[in-house]
């Protein structure tokens, strides 16, 4: 029943006390939100903390949700603000300055999440798959935070550029420009692998 409802209908049901509506909402966005944090802070415990904080804020302030904005935009706006807050509190430098070194292909930070979904059967294929994955993650980590965030929001969370502009408090053109640069750099890093893939 809840599966047929929109995000906005679900959050309204939850406002009225329907806990199952929240379960459905959470199941829809839990992975994307967690991924958004994990790929930016690159730390499992920090990602856990941020993920939990965001959802607790959603729970506490669900009554503040207004129909004018979509639930997804609202959710990621909270996530974005929480991430900025995290950066401020931890006095952490932007990711692209910290992770601009080439990560060794055999070194897998939190590599439990980096396994390929479809396991190749041959050792050569496994190695090649790992190389591609690692190259992409390395390329992603080398992006400036702003570009990486826009890429993650677009690629993993499925947000439109307009929604990303709202979430990040930027103009549409600025968001599009950031995404363009991000894709361009990733392509440059992945040229050989993309050719292989093709």
């Amino acid at each position, binding site marked *: 029943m809840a599966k047929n409802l929109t995000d906005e209908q679900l959050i309204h049901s939850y406002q009225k006390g329907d806990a199952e509506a929240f379960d459905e909402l959470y199941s829809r966005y839990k992975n994307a939100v967690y991924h958004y944090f994990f790929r930016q802070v690159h730390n499992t415990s920090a990602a856990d903390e941020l993920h939990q904080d965001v*959802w*607790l804020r959603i729970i506490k302030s669900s009554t503040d949700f207004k129909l004018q904005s979509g639930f997804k935009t609202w959710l990621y706006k909270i996530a974005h603000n929480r991430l900025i807050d995290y950066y401020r509190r931890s006095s952490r430098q932007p990711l692209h300055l910290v992770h601009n070194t080439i990560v060794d292909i055999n070194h897998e930070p939190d590599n439990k999440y980096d396994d390929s979904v479809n396991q190749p059967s041959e050792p050569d294929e496994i190695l090649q798959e790992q190389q591609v994955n690692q190259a*992409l993650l390395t390329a992603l980590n080398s992006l400036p935070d702003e570009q990486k965030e826009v890429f993650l929001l677009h690629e993993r969370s499925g947000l439109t550029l307009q929604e990303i502009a709202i979430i990040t408090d930027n103009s549409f053109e600025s968001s599009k420009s950031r995404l363009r640069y991000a*894709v361009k750099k990733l392509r440059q890093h992945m040229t050989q692998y993309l050719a292989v893939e093709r």
Partner: protein
Amino acid sequence: MKKQSNNKQDDNFFDDYLEGKSSLSEIYQQIDSAEPSDKLNQSILSAARVSTEQTAITKNSWTQTASWAASVAAISLVGILAHNTWQAEQDAAQTLEEDGLPSLSQPERVLKAKPGKAEMESSMPAGRSAPAHARAKKNVLSNSANDSRKLLYKSAPAPVMPSAPGYFELNKTESLSDKSQVQAFEDAHKEILASPAVEAKKIKQDRFSEQQIMLNKIIQLIDNNKIEQAQKLLFQFKTNYPNYPVDPVILKHLSPY
């Protein structure tokens, strides 16, 4: 040239990417499977359930508080309305008194001072509240004012002074045939005018009472079949107060005056 070609390739690649045709997306979707742990999921879902339960409890308590508040408000409203109604009745009674209606004890005082005027009796029934009494008097006055427009000779009720009406009620079947009654009427009127409550409006009332008294005298004369005197008095009245309305019945009886 080569740079332009690269830019064009980048643009095409970006356009493909936006349309979801890029292999970059395919690779990325395959490699990234970061998920929150089950423990984390459970803690968040539990928090959501606890929150809904607490909200339900808060809502119930709030509903109870609201219903209590509504009850108190309703009771207060009824109290205020009752008080205002009572106050309005008091004010109405006071207004009538200030406009020339004597105090409740006044008719009795008049009657006691002038025992010969036993026909003038207080119309206040025993056990009636002061405001109700005032309202009743006002109604009587209103009725008698209407009656005066239908004044019929011999059977007409005695006119009542509009400015100082109701300090005694006349029996409608009675006529002012007795001079002593007229005298009592005038005395009572003077007494009313002398009272402090009427002092402020005395000039106006005097003027108004004079007109009414003259008309009463005219009626008295008609009553006594002194038509000629009544005609003279009416002529004098019309000379002094040309704009004051005279009952057409009087005019009919005395025409031509």
